[in-house]
């Protein structure tokens, strides 16, 4: 039998027009499921965005002992400037560090007021040619322990961050996978209800000699359309939430490098549309099986 695409499409459209409530239920279910999926995407994109922003900005900080003399500090500075991996070295005196601290917390005088002028150590801020060399530079600085009290560099932060974010991201992916399975089940159940309401219709179709494919195709198109609408709405909602979040984080979390570009709108749209379409079609297919056994 030739495949009658036009007929299937017309049937699907007609069914949706005649059962708007069922279509709305399916669309809303898909929308909610994919919204959660999309928010998961959003969170992992931002976590990864922050991690990579931190990674980009690799510098090593060496804090001097409080009682280190200016000569000693100048000597270390010159030594460090001689390292091949180092592109730039900036000396920050204790007073400058305190000044920066005061500026940062200028809105919180209660924190700053009780502090003296010399509670922060002087330090070297060392910019690197290659972020990967942070370890080597830190190891060399170990040789200056007589005046250098503490060596801090983002490699450590990154390692800690990586440990945390890998858990977070794996958790998110796991939750997303579970959620997808739940979505398919939930949606196939919703679709099953709508098909159940029309089981007599399917029975008649089968009895007048319609093949399984002939009966099924309009339902698959229906599932596809509902999945795409649900996915599209979810993508719109997710992107809107993202812009709200980025705007909010700009004022509320000024130190966290959150960027709009961390989330690729086309990717989100694509993923959610694809997920919606697959969920809709798969859900329809699964729930049809039972009713076709006539």
């Amino acid at each position, binding site marked *: *039998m*030739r495949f*009658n695409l036009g*007929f299937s499409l017309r049937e699907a459209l*007609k*069914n949706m027009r*005649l059962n708007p409530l069922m279509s709305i239920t399916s669309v809303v279910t898909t929308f909610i499921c994919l919204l959660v999926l999309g928010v998961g995407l959003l969170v992992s994109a931002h976590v990864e965005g922050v991690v990579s922003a931190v990674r980009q900005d690799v510098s090593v900080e060496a804090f001097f002992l409080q009682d280190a003399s200016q000569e000693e500090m100048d000597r270390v500075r010159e030594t460090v400037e001689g390292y091949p991996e180092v592109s730039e070295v900036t000396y920050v005196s204790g007073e400058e560090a305190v000044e920066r601290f005061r500026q940062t917390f200028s809105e919180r005088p209660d924190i700053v007021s009780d502090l003296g002028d010399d509670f922060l150590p002087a330090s070297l801020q060392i910019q690197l040619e290659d972020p990967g060399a942070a370890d080597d530079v830190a190891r060399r600085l170990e040789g200056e322990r007589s005046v250098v009290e503490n060596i801090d560099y983002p490699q450590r932060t990154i390692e800690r961050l990586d440990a945390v974010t890998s858990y977070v991201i794996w958790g998110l992916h796991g939750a997303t996978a579970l959620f997808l399975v739940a979505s398919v089940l939930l949606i196939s159940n919703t679709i099953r209800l709508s098909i159940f309401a029309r089981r*007599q*219709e399917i*029975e*008649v*179709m*089968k*009895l*007048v*000699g*319609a*093949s*399984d494919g*002939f009966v099924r195709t309009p339902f698959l198109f229906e599932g596809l359309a509902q999945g795409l609408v649900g996915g599209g709405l979810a993508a719109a909602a997710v992107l809107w939430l993202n812009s709200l979040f980025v705007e909010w984080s700009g004022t509320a979390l000024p130190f966290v490098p959150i960027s709009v570009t961390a989330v690729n709108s086309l990717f989100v749209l694509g993923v959610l549309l694809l997920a919606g379409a697959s969920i809709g079609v798969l859900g329809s297919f699964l729930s049809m099986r039972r009713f076709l056994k*006539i």
Partner: protein
Amino acid sequence: MGEAMILFDNVTKVYGRDTVALERVDLEIEAGEFVFLVGASGSGKSTIMRLILKEVEPTAGSISVNGTKLASIPRRRVPHHRRNIGCVFQDFKLLPNKTAAENVAYAMEVTGQRRRSIRIKVPQILSLVGLAEKSEKYPHELSGGQQQRVSIARAFVSQPPILIADEPTGNLDPDTSMDIMQLLDRIHRIGTTVVVATHDRDMVNALQKRVVALEDGRVVRDKVKGAYADEV
């Protein structure tokens, strides 16, 4: 003697574990025959219909329809098999969200017929059953008799060699029932093999056709020109 259109050879059907619906039934219906299957509810009439459609499989014995053994038809070819058989039901089984014309057209669309020939044939068959003016009505806007005419039109529009009707007049008043039976008889006279399951005594007596009587899943009587029951 013509060739057998429907052949039941020693057919037994047991539902579940021990509900015997048919027991060792032999039945031969020739091409172009008109046969009444009569008997009380649960005597096995509907089971015979469902077996012919390959809606259920026999527990034992073999069935041939139109020269083909049903056991040899794979599941995916069942729709093709059903296109040889027009079906009429007691409850009409029309699609509620389609008009009379659309219901008839659906049976043709299912078999992949061209839209052109659908547009031509649907009005023809609807006027044949006397519903030319009602073609745009939905089933709930039609009377029971009219709905049954639509379902007969649907069953017959592709001119299948066999037409089976399960209690076609079960929901209709006597006058309407007679119209429906005469319609079935007309289809029979065109050359279609017609099998009607019924317990409508008056109808069977009026038409004087072959009568196969069933009781508890067995054929208890088979008369060529019979009445519903033997006159005492």
